[in-house]
């Protein structure tokens, strides 16, 4: 080793010696990918610009081209302009799409995805986070935690971005007040814990108070340079990024190799080209091809640079097997033990990314590893209410919504849960008409066996969801309280029955007389939970009918039956129990 170095040294003289050392050190460097997250204007792009500037990763001509421009005070560089590379971004002062930037330190190389904070561009944030090992979530200290901070933290957790660095930014605007930092830290830690419980992915979070504009605690510790924040004795952001564990965790899981292409240059060679998604493989080991379930031994691991004895994720290689088995693009070559599931019915978390809401009557194309299969959404299980961090029933998912669905695939595919494998558990949905990528999905459950075969054809399983009930009944569950003449109430129910609504009459008078008010409420609740319309009926005076649903009350003239019935259908629509106009028009 020493000899080699000396030889290079003499070859290249003084200067050459240094470059030889440099190249040797470079060969040892690994790669960390991280993305930014947080609400609009929290200072993400400024932070990245500052990080690049303070690590001498930007060229003079690039700095010169942004001097005197942007939103900052005269004489101060608007660092956001280093990454906001589109004209529309510079004009509007916001980030629209991800910017990828690259820099390296003595320790490792970094790929940064600087993502937009604006809600409209959530899909671009998800794009940046999907390949990230770590996320820097920014919070503006002068504004506190925003709904977008929650949304982005939620998406990062869903995508299993393991490390979260929370940069509480713009500390300069709040006079570097420790108490503000601590309060935000406490609040956001609680939110992260709640999110982790919901998504099942615990994150390791570090909190750092920074000023991206002034450069405090970004590359250099503020306590040492400007003297700001003497109360913070933790590491600067870059120190944390350099210290995060390396990414090669995919090597320890089961072997997964999606076949991208069959290479057949002549009749003597037949190899399966692909990139190892996880795990490792050695010559001589037995593997199984999915979905067929056929087995073979690995005869060669072929690369342009010579055959390998062993290969591991994420290498791109070509496998030659010892016998002819039918394998084509889209098949998965995997461990004999610890096999993937082969399923046609799966559940997945989705981030919806298209203007057109999810439509369970339509067919989508599901892309997973190297194959694409038609799929439909058999039900929406829930939508995540990001404010309250609760699940709520929903008939559909709209742009930027996060939720969970059941999917039915036209053909079985071999897959893993996203929790176990970030590559064989991930999918996208494509709209076959517009060709737009409409959703990102993470498999949370798969019903199936280890090889292709017959399966339950019902299309869904597990607890029946509100979305499924709604799809069947054509309306949501809800309570409609009616007080008025009995025959008018009968007419109302008859009219609901006529449009296909599923109702159940609860005689409130009788239950009240028997002192069963609690039972009455529980009964109504159960009916509503089952997706039915509970008619809570009371006899009232002859002249009027009062009706209430979903917090709306109306009083109607009981003489005009036709009008009363129409008004009640409208009421149900307003209360969100009827979803389309169909049921409302008599």
């Amino acid at each position: 080793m020493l000899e080699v170095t000396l030889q290079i040294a003499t070859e290249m003289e003084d200067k050459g010696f240094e470059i030889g050392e440099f190249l040797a050190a470079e060969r040892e460097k690994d790669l960390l990918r991280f993305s930014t997250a947080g609400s609009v204007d929290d200072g993400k792009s400024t932070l990245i610009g500052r990080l690049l500037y303070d690590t001498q990763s930007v060229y003079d001509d690039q700095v010169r081209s942004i001097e005197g421009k942007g939103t900052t005070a005269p004489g101060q560089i608007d660092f956001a302009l280093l990454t906001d590379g589109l004209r529309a971004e510079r004009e509007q002062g916001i980030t629209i799409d991800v910017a990828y930037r690259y820099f390296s330190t003595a320790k490792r190389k970094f790929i940064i995805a600087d993502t937009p904070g604006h809600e409209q561009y959530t899909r671009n944030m998800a794009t940046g986070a999907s390949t990230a090992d770590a996320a820097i979530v920014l919070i503006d200290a002068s504004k506190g935690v925003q709904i977008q901070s929650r949304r982005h933290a939620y998406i990062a957790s869903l995508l299993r971005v393991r490390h979260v660095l929370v940069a509480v930014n713009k500390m300069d605007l709040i006079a570097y007040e420790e108490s503000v930092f601590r309060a935000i830290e406490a609040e956001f830690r609680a939110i992260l814990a709640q999110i982790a419980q919901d998504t099942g992915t615990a994150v390791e979070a570090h909190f750092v108070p920074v000023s991206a504009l002034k450069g405090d605690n970004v590359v250099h510790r503020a306590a040492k340079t400007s003297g700001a924040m003497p109360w913070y004795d933790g590491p600067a952001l870059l120190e944390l990024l350099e210290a995060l564990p390396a990414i090669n965790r995919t090597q320890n899981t089961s072997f997964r190799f999606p076949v991208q292409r069959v290479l057949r240059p002549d009749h003597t060679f037949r190899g399966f080209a692909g990139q190892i998604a996880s795990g490792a493989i050695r010559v001589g080991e037995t593997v199984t091809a999915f979905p067929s379930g056929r087995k073979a031994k690995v005869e060669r691991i072929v690369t342009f640079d010579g055959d390998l004895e062993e290969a591991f994720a994420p290498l791109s290689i070509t496998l030659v097997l010892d016998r002819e088995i039918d394998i084509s693009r889209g098949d998965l070559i995997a461990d004999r033990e610890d096999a993937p599931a082969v399923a046609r019915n799966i559940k997945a978390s989705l981030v919806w990314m298209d203007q057109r809401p999810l439509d369970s009557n339509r067919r989508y194309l599901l892309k997973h590893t190297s194959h694409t299969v038609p799929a439909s959404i058999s039900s929406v299980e829930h939508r995540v209410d990001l404010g309250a961090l609760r699940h709520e029933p929903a008939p559909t998912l709209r742009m930027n919504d996060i939720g969970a669905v059941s999917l039915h695939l036209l053909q079985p595919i071999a897959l893993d849960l996203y929790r176990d494998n970030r590559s064989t558990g991930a999918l996208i949905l494509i709209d076959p008409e517009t060709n737009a990528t409409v959703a990102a999905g993470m498999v949370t459950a798969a019903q199936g066996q280890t090889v292709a075969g017959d399966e339950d054809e019902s299309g869904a399983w597990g607890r029946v969801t509100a979305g499924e009930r709604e799809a069947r009944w054509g309306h949501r569950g809800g309570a409609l309280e009616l007080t008025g003449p009995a025959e008018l109430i009968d007419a109302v129910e008859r009219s609901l029955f006529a449009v296909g609504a599923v109702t159940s009459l609860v005689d409130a008078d009788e239950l009240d007389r028997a002192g069963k008010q609690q039972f009455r409420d529980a009964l109504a609740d159960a009916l509503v939970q089952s997706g039915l319309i509970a008619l809570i009926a009371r006899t009232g005076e002859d002249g009027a009918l009062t009706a209430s649903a979903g917090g709306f009350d109306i009083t109607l003239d009981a003489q005009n039956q036709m009008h009363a019935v129409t008004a009640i259908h409208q009421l149900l629509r307003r209360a969100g129990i009827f979803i389309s106009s169909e049921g409302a028009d008599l």
Partner: protein
Amino acid sequence: MPAVETEILRAPSSASRPLPRRLNHLRLLEAESIHILREVASEFERPVMLYSIGKDSSVMLRLAQKAFYPAPIPFPLLHIDTGFKFREMIVFRDEMARQVGAELLVWRNEPAIAAGTNPIALDTRRCCALLKTQALLDGLRHYNFDAAFGGARRDEEKSRAKERIYSFRDAAGQWDPKNQRPELWNLYNARIHPGESIRVFPLSNWTEMDVWQYIHEENIPVVDLYFAKERPMYVRGDALLPIEQDFVARPGEKPQMVKSRLRSLGCSPCTGAIRSDAETIPAIIDELISFRSSERANRVIDHDQDGSMEIKKREGYF
């Protein structure tokens, strides 16, 4: 080019070799690029690789060899020739295609070349629009290609930094940067309507430094113009202009011999050389470490107006 011969004909050893358990950044980038090349070759009907003869194209070509080995590269190479490329580049191009065994297509905007289009007669922007962008769009349409690989890297320029690996282009070849498809994990959406196309950038995540290190480690042949040599140049202040085209000279201007090299290869009238002593790849890398300006700073074309690269890309440029 002796290096070419040995490198390409090097027989893969039949003895298997062990690999270090940890992959460095170059191996990670290589694996990602090969995955992209294989996806495109499998999902599109008529892919093509834009081959521009520069260092990035050289790396991309090597990656294509690796991706399909031992099968040949399953798509042709296309060179958009403006007529102003350095002579050495053209010689190198033909030699490389021959040795790699790839089909080479060359497309030129002949009517514009015949009309005497040059960056001095027109301005650089209009010259590029005709000889590069128009030629590219015509060439792609002529052969009916639905996917085209380009060697562009995101670290080159700030609008490039915004581009997806699969960059969707409408029927007119135009890029809409405000409305790009989301691109998650390594699941690329290859669906297009007739007439639309995808530009694919397998080197998106490589930096200029990565490219040179890879060329060094892999012994990839590159055009001699990258290495410092005494070359005749017109010297104008800090700028060094190669003497390839007659019309570049100002009246009475005489070339001088300057030890210089090119940092990026483009058209000779618009690509300035830099003074340099770097005769080897390690020396080039060493020089790169000390540079204070970006590789495109010596290209006239990227600076003629704010956001000029973005504008060109919107119009259909790579």
